[in-house]
């Protein structure tokens, strides 16, 4: 499934990195610890996190993740938005908390 379809189905807001919306999603990963994501997320995963600082884009880019979803309606920092546009890694936002958005993504991708 493409990121763009997930955006539509889960009613996500595209904060930045819209050029990357055509990427295919291989699954999801949930963590707020950057070393955990660096060590264990897989290429093409969508990453759900409450972190909003610019290092999340560096991590996503190094791991070739397909997109980042920030939870609970938080607004990513300006630097994060800039990096997301530079790296073409979509930065998506949801009003839901981690548990609910992860559940919805799971139903969409794996059920």
């Amino acid at each position, binding site marked *: 499934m493409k990121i763009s379809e997930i955006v539509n189905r889960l009613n996500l807001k595209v904060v930045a990195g819209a050029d990357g919306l055509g990427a295919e999603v291989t699954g999801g990963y949930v963590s707020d*610890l950057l070393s*955990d994501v*660096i*060590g264990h997320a897989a*290429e093409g995963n969508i990453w759900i996190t409450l972190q909003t600082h610019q*290092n*999340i884009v560096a991590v996503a880019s*190094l791991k070739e993740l397909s997109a980042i979803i920030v939870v609970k309606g938080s607004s990513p920092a300006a*630097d994060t938005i800039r990096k997301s546009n530079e790296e073409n890694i979509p930065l998506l936002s949801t009003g839901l908390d981690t548990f609910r958005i992860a559940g919805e993504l799971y139903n969409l991708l794996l059920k």
Partner: protein
Amino acid sequence: MQYRYKIAGGDFSNAGAVASSVKKTLRQLNIDHRLSKRIVIALYEGEVNVVAHAYSGIIDIDIDHERIKIRITDKGPGIVDIAKAMEEGYSTASTQVREMGFGAGMGLSNMKKNSDSMQITSEPGIGTVVELTTYLNGNEG
């Protein structure tokens, strides 16, 4: 081929820039993708350690046809108990660093898991040297 990068302690805005640059180099050299991912993970963690803990650091990369050597030399507080620092979950990172999602105590173990050999020498109050070697033919890993 040899490359040298300088890192400023505390500069989180550029954390990962060296790993990103080396990743591009490895791609240009047609290094196996799976191997390249391991190298980049180990390097990223080493780079973040300098940013999070040290005052300044230098990363030297030396690549030949059979292996890549990464040497990370920093000026900083050093590591008093290296065995303890290697334990997953142990960290001396500040609260501020932890709130950013760093300092989970996984950095050194991620580096060890993602390299073929790792050597740490450290002098408290002076700094730390971490050397990582990964073989490029994929047999030694």
